[in-house]
């Protein structure tokens, strides 16, 4: 009976002209990746809930009036999805450019240089320069924690640290305050990280951070390599128990 139910949930759709199939509880992003179709993402991370915040994974679904984020849109029977049209790529470049313009991303002197998802995406999408004027905000660096540093100059507000802290570690030390470009990731009720009562010091937030915004203390430029392989494994083990 169970097997029959699952089979009935298989949906067939077309992504970039290719006929593919997926379960009805899967997102367009998941099915695309299962079929080696590239869709860039920043706020998505395997093992965390979907947030749909960065909008880099936007795709076009035939019949819908606007582009939709593929990470939060479930597949449906007969869907026709375009992931890489010229328009979509331009939108993605625009989104990335705005991220660069919004804070102070100086790759050459960043702890994550060479291991940064933002940098990798910019290279992958062929961003050679940013057309928007840089804002150069004066952002604080929180080095009060014994082992970690939070440098808001490099934060893209993807919210991965917030989700991993809440969903996996269960501490919910991190959150986001403010609106729009004044938003900022905070610790507890906007305390210094080093003074947090809730932080367990597990370091998961540091390792899921896509840029050099969160790093381990003492790391020099280009030395901060992140390890994220643990996350889907942790999640699976929790679900089993």
């Amino acid at each position: 009976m169970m097997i029959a139910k699952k089979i009935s949930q298989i949906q067939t759709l077309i992504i970039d002209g290719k006929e593919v199939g997926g379960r009805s509880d899967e997102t367009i992003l998941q099915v695309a990746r299962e079929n080696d179709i590239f869709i860039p993402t920043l706020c998505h991370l395997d093992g965390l809930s979907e947030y749909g915040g960065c909008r880099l994974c936007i795709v076009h679904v035939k019949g819908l009036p606007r582009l939709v984020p593929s990470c939060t849109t479930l597949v449906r029977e007969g869907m026709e999805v375009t992931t890489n049209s010229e328009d979509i790529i331009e939108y993605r470049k625009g989104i990335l450019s705005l991220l660069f313009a919004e804070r102070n991303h100086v790759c050459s002197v960043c702890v994550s240089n060479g291991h940064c998802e933002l940098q990798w995406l910019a290279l992958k999408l062929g961003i050679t320069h940013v057309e928007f004027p840089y804002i150069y905000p004066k952002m604080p660096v929180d080095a009060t924690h014994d082992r970690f540093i939070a440098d808001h100059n490099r934060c893209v507000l993807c919210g991965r640290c917030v989700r991993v802290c809440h969903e996996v570690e269960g501490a919910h030390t991190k959150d986001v305050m403010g609106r729009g470009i004044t938003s900022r990731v905070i610790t507890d009720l906007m305390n210094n990280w080093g003074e947090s009562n809730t932080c367990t010091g597990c370091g998961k937030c540091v390792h899921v951070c896509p840029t050099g915004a969160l790093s381990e203390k003492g790391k020099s430029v280009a030395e901060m390599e992140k390890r994220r392989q643990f996350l889907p494994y942790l999640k699976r083990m929790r679900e089993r128990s």
Partner: protein
Amino acid sequence: MTTKKKTKKRSSELTKEESMPKELVIEPVTRIEGHGKVTIFLDQNNEVKDARFAVTQFRGFERFVEGRPFTEMPSIVERICGICPVSHSLAASKACDAILGVRIPNPAIKIRRLLNCGEFIQSHALSFFHLSSPDLLLGFDSNPAERNIVGVIKANPEIAKSGIRLRQIGGHIVEWLGKKRVHPAWVVPGGVNEPLSVEHRDMMLKEIPEALEIIQKTLRFFKGIIEDFRNEIRTFGNFPSMFLGLVDANGNWEITDGYLRFIDSRGHIVADMVEPSRYKEFIGEAVEEFSYLKSPYYKPLGYPKGMYRVGPLARLNVCNGFSTPLANREWAEFRDLERGPVLSSFYNHYARLIEILAVIELEEQLLNDPEILDPHIRAHASVNELEGVGCVEAPRGTLFHHYRVSKEGLMQWANMIVATGNNNLAINQSVLQVAQHYVKGDEITEPMINRIEAVIRAYDPCLSCSTHALGKMPLQITLKDCAGRIIKEVVRT
């Protein structure tokens, strides 16, 4: 060359007072690292009264590093320069070692010294072969359009080729250690972040015989032509001054670790075995309105009497000798040029070649030491001291980095005294000397411009990160009256 009159007022119409002092401005100075400007002041008899060498760029590194984690400093300060990033990263990392409060492992000390050898070879080769050899080989009065590295390739392809090759050999050391030839992120607080591989050690060793041959040949060649530059030797910054340089525990020549030694113009040691962290007791920094570059001076003598020189010439003057045989022999011959310290800044070129020989010998010694491959290359610690000073010899002279951090390790304050800063007063003095000798009346002549530029180049000044190796920048010389009005302007394009 074009000449144009800028003011409507004829000089005969000027009042006596207005026509008295005049200014000659040379801007930009070519074939040096960065942008400089020379102003020559004439008195009412058209005699040179004063000359100033000004740095017209403001870069603000000391200010904008404030608030950054100190662990980023070695890489941030590398961006000061594309020629000597290694020197800055070494000075920075030593200041950071002091903040960590650690003594870095021996293999790390050695491998950092090896890196500095590479830096010296490539930077000195650039200075001698690419920037200065056009003057030396083709003559100061040769056609400016030809007087560049391309002209050298045409006139003396062997010298040009070997210069390029030598620079490549130096660059290889930096690249094979730090994975990047320019701005490697390899030197870190507490040591370095990767050991030297056997393969790269062997590749470096393989290039040493060729490098030695090139430098010995060049030294022989240079000693053969040096007599042709009697006039330049006499007038290019040939004046008594103090000298500063690092020496090792035995008083021998040293470039990476060591102690400060000041000597006076007669060669007497006035301060010796000074820990670089005490530099502030000996060096003061004056600020002049006309330049963004500060003027350091020897504190006990005051400003501007405490003028001192740093760089290749200074290092050879302050040391008791070299610990490597070939360089030591050359050093003895060099010091025979004069009774006391060698005073003419023109001899910087000669000293630079001897130093290349010394670092190649030193490189060989280091590479043959089995400890150079030891993977124990980094000490780890958190902030233990809130202040640290780092000092190395950069190719252009003694370099100081001085940092203060918060207890969390964020930069609060930085002071950097770079080699060209140390030489600032001496460069001014040298420009004045050359101007007094070569400027005749209010005419701006080609030989004058060439020699003023060349004397500045003798110090191989590094004014910023930009390089103008082909000397193609336009040269502008302006003659001003006392009211600041331009009465004559010459533009060389």
